[in-house]
């Protein structure tokens, strides 16, 4: 299905590749980020961090630090304890230290904060603080964390006797076991989805501005969810007077979030406490290493994956067992009822009978986290498991992995489709997507070339990923964070002259909301997108919402924008009927105006109707032209994609070259094709990152071995292949504008395509699986072990 633009280019509704409205200020260096905010009398905070992964704090000596010129205070856990602010809840209802009173639990954990008159003085003060530690043997290997001999880490929890956090399971265990027991073919791999970091260009930071006179806190901070943060601050600090009406959270421009700016980090709370105690604004900006070493990680799932099937390629069942390494606290950012997020989407795009999935989460001496890095809550882990195993199964029975997928896809007629784990997939056409990707890349030609190359001993691989995403959390019956339902909101105010401002509960971090939301409203109201200003991030002005992550903005707030705009169109119809002296039923709408059926010369433009709403509205009708909508989605949306990757591997050096990468995405109706393409390019690059480069590595003592961007290999433009993108369009039947969300599809779908391609290249040597990131060294080692070189 293709999409046609219903509005003119001048209106700029859906489907127009309108240039991004926000780029003017970004390209001219006029963005306003947290570190750009400077307030009178502002103080600066820096943080002393632990060099050890697990240690008792014997003494914190601040004397020398307090003598450093400009240093005003050193704040420790003992100071915060007096106000009961030394611990805070996590989004998963676990607890996390703000500052420790007794024990540090991971390397780079906050130990004390320095408040000074300048950033330099704060840093000098940090170096002058002397901390005495008693180092203990940490728990680093997650597989050893449950050994009876392992020390119990969370001794702060009364009665805790092990390092187990929770167990979760879904599916039909007995039936799945029966299918596995009788299946002709069973394949199994142990895989690790590595611990990685979002490494956004802007690190985290805030300016906490507490006014004693007004008993009011304004918190400027890098957050993807300002409203939720306001509520959390009120829950944590309400007892010292910071109740919710006294708190204003402002999230200015954000330089990349990717899930890493959803959590509340200790630094934010310490800055608030410092401003509260001292009565002056306090700025805290992390440096690059602090961001990488201490802020929330993503992924880190160890998965035992199994697939059962027939000899000729029909999938019968899957089984996944997860060990989730959460660090010292469960600070994931999942909807509350979903400890493993949406991992249960791991049945994938395939129609088969049964599955059983279980997960155990454990504590280790590593930084907390588990954020949804450009991913709808663990979908990346799920998709990697199912797509890797699909190829593994194809390899086992000697069947082409594309054909195997065609033979197992959920047929497009079967939607809405009920998955064995309880999801209702809204729509999809997986066959069309894969067919399009195969045509674009000349799949048959590539397989022929591969056969010839293999005969010469050359390594070439082709990898496919046909993934299904689950985004847009979410329907209030299932989705909440700390009890707050995961609706989202839009408020549209149209001024008398027909120009508008719209505000949202979400928060763009680069996604282009200022453009796409304007296009949605333009589509519905016919007011040119150019004339619609979009505002987000200020809790005093924007309607309440849960923020931007997990590809939820278009499915929730985007839907709210469309519904609010339709309320206004209904009002415009009433005004038009009044002005044209006809019944509402006699009016027809075309983008930008109502006209009388059969008499198109009798019409009123939306601008005229809005003006009338302020100047000549019908008696009995409320004046003005404003609408608000809180959209509670009836279901999630299920974007999908078909990605094919071709790699050439240099046998002598292990070097992997991604020769081609075709990505066909289906995100339903498209709001702005250019922005979608940009999202896909960025997401694919963040997809090759864990597939080939990124992984946070710890030694046995819990020291991070790659805590700088010199050693933690973020891919650059040089490493990015030439992405070839395209799309199919299968609208969401339940979403007001048929859109599904796209930001995360490429990050989710790319890693298995790349891993499958590399394993495909190496498969003639008996290699059936390699854990990502698949580096040249890993390839070289695997070939060596198999005697291939």
């Amino acid at each position, binding site marked *: 299905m293709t999409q046609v633009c219903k509005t003119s280019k001048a209106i700029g509704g859906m489907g127009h590749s309108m240039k991004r409205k926000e780029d003017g200020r970004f390209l001219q260096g006029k963005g306003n980020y947290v570190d750009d905010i400077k307030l009178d009398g502002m103080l600066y905070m820096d943080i002393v961090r632990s*060099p050890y992964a697990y240690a008792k704090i014997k003494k914190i000596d601040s004397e020398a630090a307090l003598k450093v010129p400009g240093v005003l205070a050193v704040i420790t856990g003992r100071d915060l304890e007096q106000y009961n602010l030394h611990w805070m809840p996590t989004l998963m209802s676990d607890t996390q230290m703000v500052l420790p009173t007794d024990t540090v639990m991971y390397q780079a954990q906050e130990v004390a904060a320095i408040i000074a008159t300048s950033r330099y003085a704060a840093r000098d003060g940090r170096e002058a603080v002397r901390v005495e530690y008693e180092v203990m043997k940490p728990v680093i290997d997650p597989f050893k964390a449950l050994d009876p001999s392992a020390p119990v880490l969370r001794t702060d929890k009364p009665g805790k006797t092990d390092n187990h956090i929770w167990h979760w399971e879904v599916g039909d265990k007995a039936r799945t076991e029966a299918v596995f027991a009788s299946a002709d073919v069973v394949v199994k791999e142990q895989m690790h989805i590595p611990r990685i970091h979002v490494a956004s260009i802007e690190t985290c930071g805030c300016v906490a501005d507490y006014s004693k006179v007004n008993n009011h806190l304004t918190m400027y901070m890098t957050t993807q969810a300002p409203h939720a943060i306001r509520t959390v601050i009120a829950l944590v600090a309400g007892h010292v007077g910071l109740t919710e009406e006294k708190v204003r959270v402002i999230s200015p421009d954000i330089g990349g979030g990717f899930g890493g700016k959803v959590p509340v980090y200790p630094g934010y709370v310490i800055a608030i406490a410092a401003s509260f105690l001292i009565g002056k604004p306090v700025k805290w900006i992390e440096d690059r290493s602090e961001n990488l070493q201490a802020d929330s990680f993503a992924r880190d799932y160890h998965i035992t994956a199994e697939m059962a099937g027939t000899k000729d390629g029909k999938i019968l069942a899957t089984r996944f067992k997860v060990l989730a390494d959460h660090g010292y606290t469960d600070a994931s950012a999942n909807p509350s009822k979903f400890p493993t997020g949406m991992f249960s989407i791991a049945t994938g795009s395939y129609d088969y009978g049964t599955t059983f999935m279980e997960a155990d989460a454990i504590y280790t001496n590593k930084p907390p986290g588990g954020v949804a890095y450009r991913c709808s809550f663990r979908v990346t882990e799920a998709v990697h498991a199912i797509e890797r195993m699909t190829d593994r199964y194809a390899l086992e029975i000697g069947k082409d992995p594309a054909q195997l997928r065609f033979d197992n896809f959920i047929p497009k007629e079967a939607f809405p489709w009920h998955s064995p784990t309880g999801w209702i997939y809204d729509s999809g056409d997986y066959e069309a997507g894969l067919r399009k990707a195969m045509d674009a890349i000349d799949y048959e030609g590539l397989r022929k070339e591969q056969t010839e190359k293999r005969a010469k001993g050359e390594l070439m691989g082709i990898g496919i990923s046909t993934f299904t995403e689950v985004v847009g959390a979410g329907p209030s019956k299932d989705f909440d964070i700390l009890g707050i339902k995961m609706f989202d909101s839009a408020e549209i105010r149209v001024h008398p002259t027909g120009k508008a401002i719209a505000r949202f509960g979400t928060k763009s971090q680069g996604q282009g909301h200022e453009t796409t939301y304007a296009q949605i409203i333009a589509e519905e109201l016919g007011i040119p997108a150019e004339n619609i200003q979009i505002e987000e991030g200020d809790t005093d002005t924007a309607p309440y919402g849960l923020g931007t992550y997990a590809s939820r903005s278009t499915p929730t707030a985007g839907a709210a924008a469309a519904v609010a705009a339709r309320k206004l169109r209904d009002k415009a119809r009433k005004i038009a009927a009044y002005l044209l002296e006809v019944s509402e039923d006699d009016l027809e709408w075309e983008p930008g105006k109502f006209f009388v059926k059969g008499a198109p010369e009798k019409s009123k433009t939306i601008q005229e109707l809005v003006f009338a709403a302020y100047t000549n509205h019908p008696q009995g009708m409320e004046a003005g032209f404003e609408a608000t909508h809180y959209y509670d989605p009836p279901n999630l949306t299920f974007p999908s994609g078909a990605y094919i990757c071709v790699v050439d591997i240099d046998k*002598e*050096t292990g070097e992997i070259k991604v020769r081609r990468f075709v990505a066909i995405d289906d995100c339903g109706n498209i709001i702005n094709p250019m922005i979608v393409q940009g999202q896909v390019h960025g997401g694919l690059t963040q997809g090759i990152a864990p597939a080939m*480069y990124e992984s946070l590595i710890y030694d046995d003592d819990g020291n991070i071995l790659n805590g700088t961007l010199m050693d933690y*290999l973020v891919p*650059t433009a*040089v490493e990015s292949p030439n992405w070839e993108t395209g799309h199919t369009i299968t609208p969401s039947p339940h979403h007001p504008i048929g859109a599904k969300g796209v930001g995360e599809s490429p990050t989710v779908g790319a890693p298995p395509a790349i891993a499958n391609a590399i394993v495909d290249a190496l498969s003639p040597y008996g290699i059936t699986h390699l854990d990502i990131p698949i580096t040249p*060294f890993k390839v*070289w080692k695997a070939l060596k072990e198999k005697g291939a070189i």
Partner: protein
Amino acid sequence: MKLFSYAQATKPADAVQLLGAQTQSKFIAGGTNLVDLMKYDVESPDRLVDISQLALTQIDATDKGLRIGALARNSDVAANALVMKQFPLLSEALLAGASPQLRNMATMGGNLLQRTRCHYFYDVSQPCNKRAAGSGCGAIGGYNRIHAILGSSPSCIATNPSDMNVALAALDAVVQVTGPNGSRSIPILDFHRLPGNTPQRDTVLEANELITAVDLPTTAIGGKSHYLKVRDRASYAFALVSVAARLAVENGVVRDVRIALGGVAHKPWRLPDVEKNMVGKPATETTFRSAAKALLAGAQPHEHNAFKIQLAENAIVRALQTVS
């Protein structure tokens, strides 16, 4: 970071004099390495003598070849028409290193003195004989994937991380220095040291000597050259193994050759005897492979870097095949 004083020199002689005035002084030019090391407390000088304003940035043709000022920026050298025409190997090696931003700041002299990327050298909580003489070596028995396989000692297995130095070794460069006792010329192969039991010294440069220029002699070798760098990421990453190769072939026979290796030793690794042996032999994989094995003779792997031996052998053969 420790407090330090700062002085700016306007003439080479002043620079040497300013440096000599205090014991813990350091020259600073582009600062791409020293500033990082100061932030990590690996280096903590009392005084920085800024030499960035000295008139040592020229790249001039001389009767014997090319003279490149010690303060010429890596990016300028890489893009210089004379360098690209006469010594493309140097351009290639420079562009294989760091990032454009770093190359815009880094200088010729600073690159020659670039310090190792050994994790234990950078981590002041760990023992390191290079940083703190006599404290031990964390890398031996530690995580030593990036470390040396050739020419190391029981006190140090660090490598020289520079790409440029490898090219200079293959180009028979000569380093010009000046100091309180006058000027001297140091052939590149004598400039960098093996660690022995004094790994704290990377080069033979005396503490108060200043590099003024690098001379590249025009030779009759002719032929082609190539810099092959194997690394974990295609940009902004140090070499696991690199090869700077120059090869002249006449009638299928090696007429002259230079092979220098990076990422494998405390200094760029070159064995002139191996090169002499190749002369007159057919320019075939057999000759290249046996030369590679000879260059790597006596290689001593550590727990995590044994792969470098095979990788270096493959890389040498590949580089020579590329230029033959």
